[in-house]
C-alpha cells in the first residue's frame, strides 16, 4: 500500500498541521517508507486473537464523587498565550 499526496494533505488537515511548500512531498516519501515497514503486519493471521490495548488487565478505578481539586486557575492561565478576565482568548468562531 502507498499513500498519495492528497491523502497526506488530508491527514495533515485532520491532524491540524499546516504543511509548507515541499513539506507534503517530503512527508509522503518518508511516510511511505514507514508504511512499507509496518506493512509486514498484514501477513499475520490474527483471527481469534484478542486485541491487547494495555499491559495490565485493569479496570477503570472509581473514586468518591467529592471535590479534590482546588482552584488553580491563575497558576494554570499564567502559561497561556492569551487570557482575559479568567478566559482563554481565541479568534472569533461565531459571527
Amino acid at each position, binding site marked *: 500500500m502507498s499513500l498519495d499526496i492528497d491523502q497526506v494533505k488530508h491527514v495533515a488537515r485532520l491532524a491540524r498541521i499546516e504543511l509548507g511548500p515541499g513539506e507534503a512531498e517530503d512527508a509522503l516519501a518518508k511516510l511511505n517508507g514507514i508504511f512499507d515497514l509496518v506493512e509486514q503486519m498484514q501477513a499475520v493471521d490474527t483471527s481469534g486473537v484478542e486485541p491487547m490495548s494495555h*499491559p495490565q488487565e485493569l479496570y477503570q478505578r472509581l473514586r468518591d464523587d467529592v471535590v479534590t481539586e482546588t482552584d488553580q486557575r491563575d497558576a494554570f492561565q499564567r502559561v497561556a498565550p492569551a487570557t482575559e478576565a479568567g478566559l482563554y482568548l481565541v*479568534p472569533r468562531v461565531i459571527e
Partner: protein
Amino acid sequence: MLNASLQELASALADRRISSVELTRSVLDRIAAGNPRINAFVHVDADGALAAAAAADARIAAGEAGPLTGIPLAHKDVFCTEGMPTTCASKMLANFVSPYDAHVVSQLKKAGTVLVGKTNMDEFAMGSSNENSHFGAARNPWDTSRVPGGSSGGSAAAVADGLIPVATGTDTGGSVRQPASFCGVTGIKPTYGVVSRYGMIAYASSLDQGGVLARSAADCAPVLSAMAGFDPRDSTSLARPAEDFGRDLDGSIEGLKIGLPREYFGEGMDADVRAAVEAALDTYRSLGAITVDIDLPNSRLAIPAYYVIAPAEASSNLSRFDGVRYGHRAAEYADLAEMYCRSRAEGFGAEVKRRILVGTYVLSHGYYDAYYLQAQKLRRLIADDFRRAFGQCDVIAGPTAPTTAYALGAKCDDPVQMYLGDIYTVAINLAGLPALSLPAGFGQGGLPVGLQLIGNYFAEARLLNAAHRFQQATDWHLARPAGE
C-alpha cells in the same frame, strides 16, 4: 567525589565529611565545565539546587536523613517541575514553566534529593539519537562526533560524563535502555504501572514508563524505590505496597536461569556487540548462572506493531497542543483553524509531525482495523511469547541495541533506519515488562556495549540483583570517558 557511588556519597554526607551544599557546588562546577562539550543539560537551576542542598544539610544535621537526602540529581525534561522550564526539548514548550510537579519529581523531592536541572532529549521523547531536540543534539561523551542514543540521551550522557550521579529518564520503546547502552551507564525501566505517569508529558500512554539512569545497578535501586509507588492521579498506576528494589542486590545468582532468545542472536547484530554480549554471558556462567535457549517467535513483528501503536497514541496525546491553553501560538492567523494548524506546524519538529501524521492515518476511518487493531493483536502475541518464555527461565538476556553509538547525522534523514535500531527494546514495552541495560564491555572505537536483561512482571529486584552481581565481578561500569 564525582566518581563515588550513591552509597559512598550518602555515607560521606552522613559522616559530615562533605555537605550537600559542597557536593552540589562541585556538581554545578562540573556541569559548567563539561556541558558545553556534550549539551546534556537544557536547564540548570543553581540557586534552587543550592537552596535544596542547604535544606538537605539541615535534615542531615537533624538526624532525619534518608539514603538519598542531599544527593544531586537531574530530571529528563519530560517531567513537569514546578516553577522550572519543562520543554520536552520542543519549540512548542520552549517557554513553558510548569505550574506543578510530576509525581516522580515530588517523590524524589520528598526523599531529599537535590534537583540540579533538566536534561536534553528527543522532542516529546520521539527518537533514538537525541538529535530531534529543539536545543540541539546531545553528544556522546565517549566520542562527541557520535549520538548518545535517545530519547533520554541527555540523562545518559550526563551520567556517563560524571556531570551528575543519577538522572531520571522515560522509556516508551527503549528510551532509557538504548542511551544507557550507547553511553556505558546502567538504566532500568520498571514494569508498566510501577512509576506514576502523572506530570510526565505523554507520548504513548500505554507504553510510557519512567526509569532511572546511573552508574550501577546499586545506584539505580534506591532512586527507583523512591520514585515508584501508587498514585491515584495516574489511572494506570498500580496499587502495590512500597518496595525496596535493592533488597536482593547481594543475593546469589547460582542457578539463575538466563534465557537467550534465538531471535536476538541471529543476523542484524554488529560483530563487536555480539562479542561483548557473548563475553558477558560467559561471565554470568562463571558466576553460576545457567543459560538456556528460548524462542520469542513474534519478535520481528514488534517494530511494525510499535510504530503503529505509539504514533496512534501520540497523535491523540499531542492534540492537546492547540496554542490555546499553553505552548506555542503562531503570530499570524486568519481564523481558529489556521491558528491551530500554524501553531502546530511551527511548534513541532519534523519527527513529531511524522508520528502524528502516521498516527492520525492509522486511526482514521477505514484504516483502524487494518492497522491499529491488527497491531494490538500482534501486541498480544508478543506478550504471550514472553509469558511462555518465562516458564523456562528467570530472566532473558541479549543485546540492548544492534550497534554501538553511531555518528551524528547518520540516520537523521532515514526514519526507518532509525526505527530498526529499536529491534531489541520495543517488544518489552509492548508487553509492559521490566528491563535494564548494563555496561557489558566495549566495541570498535572504544564505544560502550550494553547487555539487556529482561524480567518477568515485577521482577525489578531480581534484575537489579543479576546486574549488581555482574558489576561486582566486572568493572565495565566504572570506566569513564577520557574527556577533551
